[in-house]
């Protein structure tokens, strides 16, 4: 042996003692579940935005058919009134069939000619400067027989409440996943320390600082967190992809939602993928910070 010979120094903590395979598997599952929860959050957020923007752009005027009234004349009066209202950008009187079609789920496709189906007027409004709905409703009721204004506000409020409940549920799931991950990392840290108790005693007695010993161990947790995070996201994206393939295009449901998540326009996709791929980073940070804090705390209990 010569002095110039290069030695390869071995790892101070033996890699085969208490391997972190079990933690990698469980962290992967946690990251996968986190991806699904994040995917659900993104889809809920986008759906709510789409519903509410559609609803807030439009209002509907309903003109009920009244006996002893010229309904076509009333309809025309309503149209004129709406067209002259400040904040209204477009007025479209829907055909009688449109109203009948809306009632189809309840009344079927039979002959509805004898029924007094209300006529509907779709009113597009200026979102930035909408009309005074209270005044418009009063004006309509005063001037047009059988008219009423539906601003969809109640429906929009219901949707928003439901979406908020789902979002809160998703956040709660994410919080539970994070807490479980932290608990698992603490448990794994204790296992690694117990398995290497002799090594750690020797390191202490030759003058190693707690931070030095912790660094020898937490670098493994860093790798574990990152690997599990990438695997979890990979599985999550694969799941959305397979769900996207499982249904026909435009049929709605989970399949369409999954396709919408994966193949969104670039400005939305950047956000979606950005949030999904934050999972490995968060998993790495959880593993690293938790194991470091647990290690320092546990090492301090050893003289």
């Amino acid at each position, binding site marked *: *042996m010569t*002095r110039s010979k290069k030695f390869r*120094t*071995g790892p*101070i903590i033996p890699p085969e003692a208490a391997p972190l395979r079990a933690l990698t598997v469980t962290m992967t599952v946690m990251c996968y579940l986190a991806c699904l929860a994040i995917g659900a959050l993104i889809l809920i957020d986008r759906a709510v935005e789409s519903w509410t923007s559609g609803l807030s752009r439009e209002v509907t005027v309903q003109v009920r058919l009244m006996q002893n009234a010229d309904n076509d004349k009333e309809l025309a009066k309503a149209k004129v009134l709406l067209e002259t209202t400040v904040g209204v950008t477009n007025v479209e009187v829907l055909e009688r069939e449109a109203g009948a079609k809306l009632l189809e789920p309840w009344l079927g496709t039979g002959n509805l000619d004898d029924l007094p189906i209300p006529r509907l007027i779709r009113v597009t409004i200026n979102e930035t400067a909408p009309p005074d709905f209270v005044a418009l409703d009063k004006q309509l009721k005063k001037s047009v027989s059988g008219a009423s204004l539906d601003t969809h506000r109640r429906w929009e409020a219901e949707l928003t409440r439901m979406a908020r409940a789902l979002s809160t549920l998703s956040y709660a799931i994410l919080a539970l996943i994070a807490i479980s991950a932290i608990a698992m990392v603490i448990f794994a840290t204790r296992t690694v320390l117990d398995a290497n108790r002799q*090594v750690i005693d*020797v390191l202490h007695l030759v*003058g*190693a*600082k707690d931070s030095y010993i912790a660094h020898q161990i937490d670098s493994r947790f860093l790798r574990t967190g990152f690997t599990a995070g990438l695997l979890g996201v990979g599985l999550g994206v694969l799941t959305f992809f397979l769900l996207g393939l499982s249904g026909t295009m435009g049929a709605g449901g989970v399949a369409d939602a999954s396709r919408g998540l994966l193949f969104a326009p670039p400005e939305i996709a950047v956000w979606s993928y950005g949030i999904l791929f934050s999972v490995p980073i968060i998993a790495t940070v959880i593993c690293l910070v938790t194991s470091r804090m647990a290690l320092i705390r546990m090492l301090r209990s050893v003289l």
Partner: protein
Amino acid sequence: MVRLDSVGLRYGDGPEILKDVSFYLQPGSLCFLTGPSGAGKTSLLRLLFLALKPTRGLIRIFDKDVSQVSRWELPLLRRRIGVVFQEFRLLDHLTTFDNVALPLRVMGQREDSYRADVMDLLKWVGLEDQAQAYPPVLSGGEKQRAAIARAVISKPELLLADEPTGNVDPVLAKRLLHLFMELNRLGTTVFLATHDLKLVSQGKGSVLHLEKGILKAA
């Protein structure tokens, strides 16, 4: 260097292992601690290498009261102390070279900065050819020498050894004693715990005798 005043030690609620132990080690001195098995020699050494805290009494090492030493200061004090454990406590997953270099490595030194020093020391203790061998394949004497090399590689001011010749034949025991005396001649304070009275008679140092936890000057 080291001062103990009325030190007592007990494990949990058990009997007192050390009773009113008091002594002073001069810097650069060589001292033997003798006594039969179970007298408390290892416990006394564990107090000195700061692996235990006394139940009562005062221990000052390098002019520091060990009861006042903070967690942050503890490694810095331990780096000034070399320890040879009775059971060697080499790390089986590291080569002899890595085991010997461990105190330097934990100080943050790079391998290329200490390689030559470690190889010189391994040569000095006769383990140059075993540098890349792992402890499980070393003989008892080789492990003992590797443990001694690890204890002295960082040039400690105080060297503590617990039965350093307990697992070797008389010839090797004599060689190891000469090694400790050489280190002492170079300025290291050496404190050896042994029940081998023949070894004590060959060394030129003061002797403390421990019996049933009570220290007596021999």
